[in-house]
């Protein structure tokens, strides 16, 4: 079981701020993203090239492997400061 969170514009477009996911094979973040994209419709927002992601609250690349219990997050380019 993993927790997936969405922030800012992604959260608004998707209409949820997060979800628990049970996946047979966890794989990496790119595979998780492909799984979410396969839902179609609004989920295409995650296809954006400048999408950022984090594993357990640390920025990471899409090639990062996911482990059971992880907290994964997808979000648009950050704009603080």
């Amino acid at each position, binding site marked *: 079981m993993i927790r997936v969170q969405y922030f800012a514009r992604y959260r608004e477009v998707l209409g949820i701020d997060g979800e628990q996911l049970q996946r047979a094979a966890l794989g990496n973040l790119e595979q998780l993203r492909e799984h979410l994209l396969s839902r179609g419709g609004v989920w295409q927002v995650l296809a954006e090239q400048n999408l950022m992601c984090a594993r357990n609250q640390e920025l990471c690349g899409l090639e990062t492997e996911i482990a059971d219990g992880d907290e994964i997050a997808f979000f648009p380019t*950050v704009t*603080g400061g």
Partner: protein
Amino acid sequence: MSVRIQVEAFDPGVELNALHAANLGIGAVATFVGYVRDYNDGRDVHGMFLEHYPGMTEKALAGIVGEAEQRWPLLRVEVLHRVGRLQPGEPIVFVGTASAHRQAAFDACNFIMDYLKTRAPFWKKEDTPEGARWVEGRCRDQQAAQRWSKP
């Protein structure tokens, strides 16, 4: 090191003075204050909402400050960032770096802001006459951060 995320407004002057207080070894303090503008990308801005990723935000900022402390001889560092609703003219972010000499303070302050802009999970949503809109990330912020990469 001090990292604070808060909804409440703050006074940059108070933060600046606190940074120097009771440490006579500090010969230089550099600060950056970011403010909400009333205009952006061709539209009036009446206010904004700052969203963040609770938990990760604090970790990301602590990591950035930790890296600055490894690179420069800093005596004190403070990062303060607001979240929630803000009005034009209000301070959003305060970064203060204290050192014995100015160059470390200047460079560390610059470095922390460049990394904060590209790595800390904050998102701005502006209120404009045409409705609310999310601010898009800027390429030049990425380029500014890249100049600190070690060869």
